[in-house]
Every structure is written in structure tokens, then in C-alpha cells.
């Protein structure tokens, strides 16, 4: 599929970018004719201003004289560049390389368009995978559609080389142009010299020589241009003949996406807020998706009338770039809001992100269950807050209460029986009727012995209590108590003749039926040393308890229950 010649490039030009940015931030095309000025000159205007006689290059006074209702805004090159980068970020979803070419052009690598047609679009565009020409046209359509979804109007051109693609996007005859490989010179010929974006001195001298279009420049002998203009002249000639082999400069986003929108009228109810929120959530999500990231925490900022703002942090259970999933917890917040004033503008930022791994559903997986899980985890995270829902992960610590830590609950798909067998080393055995099956899983007792943590401990044994000898419980009880008290309760041993007959916890004393131990656990001398002797004590009327004697002071503590 590799082609000879300059790299294939898709150029997307955003006409009147400053005006588009302002309109987009206001959430629509309504309102007075709008123009943007810099240093007293109009640099961009919208269609209604243009129909009123305003055009770029006109002085601000002339523009106002031509169109009395004109709204004038000052140019903000930094904001324009940020907006261009934002769109470039989203376009990373459809092209391996995107170059941001200020002030208003994005260049995409179209060399792998046929591969993208298979991976991303499939189905109706399968034909594009076989035909590189159709794939390029499809890529251009996809780029323009993605930009339109995000509120941008664009013109597109696919051609060989950065310069020709850029020139054709801006000055081409149609909104979407595709030039076959090797046909760039003919496509560029009718374009004005300005389309080639030559250095000002070269462009001025060529114009003085009567060179008006790219075709005229291409027809000049290159030796003459080299003699008169030097290297710049030869470069201009090569560009006019469609020969531009400079590579794209990859754009790597360095900041997390932020989008904002002003409401047409101050909102006092949740519905208009949610409507506007969905719009900016789509934009932020598209930008994250282009980078293969998903948000794990969002910040929603509501600008209040007349001043002040409300900031809301929205934790998400899973990293996701799906705006629909963000809206579930966002709605919970918005409906619970009690604001002192109406909302005039919204801003949404992804303040914590994580890579989103591609998901592949196996046979038997239920996508609706995954969606239900996302929804309920988001609701719980909003209502209960951080730290209230987690999965536990074992930690190599001697101190029992520190033997696990909370981690984010991100369950993997259920492993298949075969994967389980491979992972556990169990051998498949032949089923008596036919086929292979798994041997029965180990009993809970065996699991207990295998999986229980083994801290540093002294050998446990049986002990005599009040004339009774304990036995190892036949019950498949866990090695550790199922419930561990957050704050151990002070216990007092009662007995006679060196034998413990009862343990007093609080006001009541419980007769001891049996006890097993001790299991000595100590360590962490480098941080907070501890030395404990644990006993499993069976108390009449209470059950099996986990009691330890603190080596520091000799006191007894009830630490947990084998519940």
C-alpha cells in the first residue's frame, strides 16, 4: 500500500477561527453580526457581518460604518491556538499524527487511512480498506464530521505534502478536495500565490514580476529562480509544482482538556444546565478519546450571577471517555445543588485521567451489566465519597490491621474456566462421558491453608483451660477472624491456679470454653514496633474471639471475632 512521492496529508482549515471560537463558547450562532479585530483591523467576521459589507482587512471604523449592528471583539491569538490544539487533540482519534499549524490549520497523516478504515469504521466503509483513494476520502469526511460534532466548520483537502494540502484546503474549489498522487501541480495551478504561504519578500518580488498564481510560478525555470531568489526561490518553485516532502511535526498534548460554555440566559433550573453540560462533556470526552485516555475525576465549575462560582468535583469509578457515563454522576450533583444565584456559564475539566485499555467482550459477557456496574459505582461514589467503596488488596505487613489496603474497585472480566485452570496449574481431566473438564476446586480448608498470610509467629499449640483440652476445630474456619475491630477492646482475664476461667470484656465476664495459641506476631521495629501474642479463645455465649496480649504492657485486648 506504500506510495512513492510526498507523504499523503489531510489538511483541515477552520475559516474565521476567532469568530467560530467565540460563537462556540456562546453555544450558538444567534446574536448580532460578529467580527474580530486586531490592531484596529478586522481579521475575521461571520457570514452575517460579511453580508453587511464587512470583510477582513477593513479598518474597525470602516466595518462599523458598513454594519451598524456589528459586535466587535478583540483578537485572542492564545485562545485561538488553544482551541486549535483542542480540536487537534480530538483528531488524534482518527490519525496517527496530527500537526497543529497556526493560525487555523490542522494537518493529519493520511498515509494510513486504509488501515484506519478497518479499525475504526468497519461495516459500511469496508470498501475503503481495499481502496486507498476511497479511504482518504473517508478520512476527510470523518475528520470534518468529528470537527462538526465539536462545533467547528472546516474545509478539507487530501494531497501529497503539507504545503499543497494546506493550500488546497484554504483555496480549493470545494469544501472537500482530494488530489490524486502526482496530480498536485495541476490542482495548485489555478490557486493564487498567497495559497503557497511564501515568505513575504519572495511573495512581494514575485508579484512585482507579474506572477499571480501557482501555475505561473511552476512554469518558471528553476535555475532563474535560484539565481534571483536563492534557496527560497527554489523551495517556492518546488511547492508550486506540488513537491513538498517535509514531514509533519507531531502534536503531543501537554495539558488536560478544559471546555467552557456561556449560557444564552442565566439558568435557575437543572435542565438547561444539563443540556449545556452534555455539550461540553462531549467536547472534553472527544479530546480525551483522541489521546486514549479516560477521566477518573472531573471538575465542574458553575459561574454564578452576578459573581462567584460553584466548583464540584465528580469522582468516577472507572476511567472512561464516555460523556454519557459522566452525565450519570453529574446529574446526581446538579439535581442536589442549592445555588445562591442563577448560572451564567459552565466549565468542565478532566483533572485526573488514566489510560483506557481497549475492551474486548468475550462470548457470554453482558455489555448491559457493565453499563449497570458503571452507573451504580458512579452513584455510590457521588453519594458516599472517596474511600467509601474500594476493593481490598493484601499487603505484606506483619501488623494484622495493616495487612490489606484499599484500592480502586476495577474488576477484570471473569476468567474463563480454561484460563483459571492454566493460572492455577490444575490439570484438565477427561470427563467420563467425553470431553475435558476441571477437577473439583479445593475445599475451603485447603484454600485456607494455602492462602492465609503467614506472619512471623511462634508455633501455636493447644492449651488447657479449666480442665478442658481444646481441639483443632473441625469447622473450616478461617485462619484469621472475619471481623477485626477498628478499636480493640480491653479484656481482663480471670482465673485461678494459673488457669484462665473467664474473660471480662466491658461489664460482663464470659466463661472460657477453650483457647488455642499463642501465635506471636511482632515486628516493624523500624517504624512502630509491636509484640503481640494472639489467642483464639472460645467464650461461652459469645463464640470464638481473637484476643492478644500486648507485649509492651501485658494487657489483653479483644481484637476480632471469628464470625
Amino acid at each position: 500500500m506504500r506510495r512513492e512521492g510526498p507523504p499523503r496529508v489531510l489538511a483541515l482549515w477552520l475559516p474565521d477561527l476567532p469568530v467560530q471560537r467565540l460563537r462556540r463558547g456562546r453555544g450558538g450562532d444567534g446574536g448580532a453580526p460578529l467580527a474580530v479585530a486586531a490592531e484596529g483591523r478586522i481579521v475575521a467576521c461571520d457570514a452575517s457581518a460579511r453580508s453587511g459589507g464587512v470583510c477582513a482587512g477593513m479598518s474597525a471604523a470602516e466595518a462599523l460604518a458598513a454594519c451598524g449592528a456589528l459586535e466587535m471583539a478583540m483578537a485572542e491569538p492564545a485562545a485561538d491556538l488553544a482551541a486549535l490544539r483542542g480540536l487537534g487533540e480530538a483528531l488524534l482519534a482518527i490519525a496517527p499524527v496530527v500537526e497543529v499549524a497556526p493560525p487555523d490549520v490542522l494537518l493529519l497523516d493520511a498515509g494510513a487511512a486504509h488501515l484506519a478504515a478497518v479499525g475504526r469504521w468497519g461495516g459500511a466503509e469496508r470498501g475503503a480498506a481495499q481502496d486507498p483513494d476511497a479511504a482518504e476520502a473517508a478520512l476527510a469526511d470523518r475528520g470534518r464530521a468529528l470537527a462538526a460534532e465539536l462545533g467547528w466548520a472546516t474545509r478539507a483537502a487530501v494531497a501529497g505534502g503539507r504545503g499543497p494540502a494546506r493550500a488546497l484546503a484554504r483555496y480549493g474549489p470545494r469544501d472537500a478536495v482530494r488530489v490524486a498522487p502526482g496530480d498536485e501541480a495541476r490542482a495548485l495551478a489555478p490557486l493564487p500565490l498567497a495559497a503557497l504561504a511564501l515568505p513575504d519578500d519572495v511573495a512581494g518580488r514575485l508579484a512585482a514580476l507579474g506572477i499571480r498564481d501557482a501555475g505561473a510560478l511552476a512554469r518558471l525555470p528553476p535555475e532563474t529562480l535560484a539565481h534571483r531568489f536563492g534557496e527560497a526561490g527554489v523551495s517556492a518553485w518546488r511547492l508550486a509544482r506540488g513537491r513538498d516532502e517535509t514531514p509533519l511535526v507531531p502534536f503531543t498534548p501537554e495539558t488536560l482538556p478544559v471546555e467552557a460554555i456561556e449560557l444564552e440566559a442565566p439558568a435557575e433550573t437543572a435542565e438547561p444546565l444539563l443540556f449545556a453540560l452534555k455539550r461540553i462533556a462531549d467536547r472534553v470526552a472527544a479530546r480525551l478519546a483522541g489521546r486514549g485516555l479516560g477521566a477518573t475525576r472531573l471538575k465542574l465549575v458553575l459561574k454564578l450571577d452576578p459573581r462567584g462560582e460553584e466548583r464540584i468535583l465528580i469522582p468516577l469509578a472507572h476511567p472512561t471517555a464516555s460523556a454519557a457515563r459522566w452525565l450519570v454522576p453529574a446529574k446526581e450533583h446538579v439535581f442536589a445543588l442549592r445555588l445562591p444565584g442563577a448560572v451564567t456559564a459552565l466549565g468542565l475539566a478532566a483533572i485526573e485521567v488514566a489510560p483506557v485499555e481497549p475492551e474486548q467482550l468475550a462470548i457470554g459477557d453482558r455489555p448491559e451489566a457493565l453499563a449497570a456496574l458503571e452507573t451504580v459505582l458512579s452513584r455510590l461514589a457521588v453519594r458516599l465519597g472517596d474511600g467509601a467503596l474500594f476493593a481490598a488488596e493484601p499487603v505484606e505487613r506483619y501488623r494484622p490491621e495493616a495487612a490489606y489496603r484499599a484500592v480502586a474497585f476495577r474488576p477484570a472480566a471473569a476468567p474463563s474456566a480454561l484460563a483459571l485452570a492454566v493460572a492455577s496449574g490444575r490439570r484438565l481431566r477427561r470427563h467420563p462421558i467425553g470431553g475435558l473438564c476441571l477437577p473439583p476446586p479445593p475445599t475451603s480448608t485447603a484454600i485456607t491453608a494455602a492462602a492465609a498470610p503467614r506472619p512471623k509467629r511462634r508455633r501455636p499449640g493447644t492449651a488447657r483451660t479449666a480442665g478442658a483440652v481444646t481441639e483443632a476445630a473441625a469447622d473450616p474456619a478461617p485462619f484469621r477472624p472475619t471481623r477485626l475491630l477498628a478499636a480493640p477492646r480491653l479484656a481482663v482475664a480471670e482465673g485461678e491456679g494459673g488457669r484462665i476461667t473467664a474473660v471480662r470484656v466491658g461489664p460482663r465476664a464470659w466463661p472460657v470454653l477453650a483457647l488455642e495459641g499463642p501465635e506471636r506476631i511482632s515486628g516493624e521495629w523500624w517504624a512502630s514496633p509491636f509484640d503481640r501474642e494472639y489467642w483464639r479463645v472460645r467464650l461461652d455465649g459469645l463464640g470464638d474471639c481473637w484476643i492478644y496480649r500486648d507485649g509492651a504492657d501485658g494487657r489483653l485486648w479483644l481484637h476480632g471475632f471469628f464470625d
Partner: protein
Amino acid sequence: MPTEAVAPTLVLARLREEIRRIERRPARRGGCVPCRRPEVDEALPGGGFPRGAISELRGGPASGKTAVALAVFAALEGEGLAAYVDGRGELYPPAAAALGVDLARLLIVRPGVTAAAGGTRAADPPRGGPAREVALTALWAAEALLASGAFAAVAVDMPLTHAVRGADAMLRRLQAAAEKGGAVGLWLSPSGSALRPPAAVRVELASRGGRTVARRLVGEAPAPWRNGAGDAA
């Protein structure tokens, strides 16, 4: 013509099927989940805990009810996810792992805990003020988890008293939530608890000489204790 009479019926049937497909919720589950502890399973009517219903596990502080709930989680074996609403903040995950529970597929919910890394709280039953809020939040979380259809089993350990206003109504909603989501709902309640949710099965557990014994409660007349040997103890 018969074909003309049948065609609209077929069309309607296909449309109904299409609407069902579009509106499809997570598949409902039926049957029972045994915890693979004979002394408990033998006491249960279907040999296990019913899906789509609340089952009450009643017992003292060391009666084995938490271990039974964890055994149910372990018995799922990748069939689905499990959730434990830990109102006391006392569940000890290493013990769950020792019982065969896949910790990565167990969601632990501790209402009222805001600090990360497994914060803990006092374990006294809530009566009013912030503790009441914690109790109601725990019940709300249990209802959301049961109704979601994303979890195959949900256990709730939240001791309640009559002093918690609004708990009665929320407890009644748990059964409907379990029916909706198809999960095995396990309500762990201490002995003598006055508040109890509507439950399809009530089992009382006790520790006798290191063994867990169980008996099913039917109304006020408890069945004989089962010791796991197939006989009444």
C-alpha cells in the same frame, strides 16, 4: 386470507421483541446459590440462598454469619461480582481471601468513611445524628447495589435499632431491589435485633463447640439445629 391475518401478528411480535431487546435490563437470575457448607445448605429450603431475594443471617458476634456470607461470595466463582456493605467497618479482607473470595471482584462499601485506605469507624449501632445518616446511607447503598443487576450477591452488615427513623421503609425496599436486580441479598443481623427486613429465608446461626450450626426460622417456630451431618443436632 390467513397469511394476511398472521402477518400483522408476526410484525407485532417482532416489534415487541425489538422493544424488549432495546429496553433489556441485565439478565435476571433464578435459582439458588449454595454456600457449600452442609450445615447451612441443609437448613435452606432450596439447598442454597435464593437469587432475587433477601435472606437473613442472624447470630451473635462470633456465630459464623460473616463466614457464611463470604462462603456465598466464594461459591460464585467468577459467575458475578459481590458487594459487602460494611456498616460496622469490621470486615477483615484477608479472612475473605482465605475463604476463597476473589478480592478483586469484591466491592467493599463503608458508608461514612471518607479517608482512603480502608478507614474505620466505631462499631456501635447508630441511633441518631451522624450515625443515623450513616445507617440510612448504608441502606441506600444496599438498595442501589441490589437493584443494579451488576452484582450477583450483596451482603449488608448494618446493625439497626428502632431509633433510626426511616429505616423501616428502606428495609422494605430492599426486597423489591433484590427482585429487580436478581442478586442474592444477605442481611446480617445480630441476635435479638428488633429491626429485620422482609426476607424469603431466615437462618439463625450459632457456634457450638467450634462448629457452626444453623436452623431456619419460620415465623416464630424455629426448625431444629442442623450440624452439617444431615441430622438434627
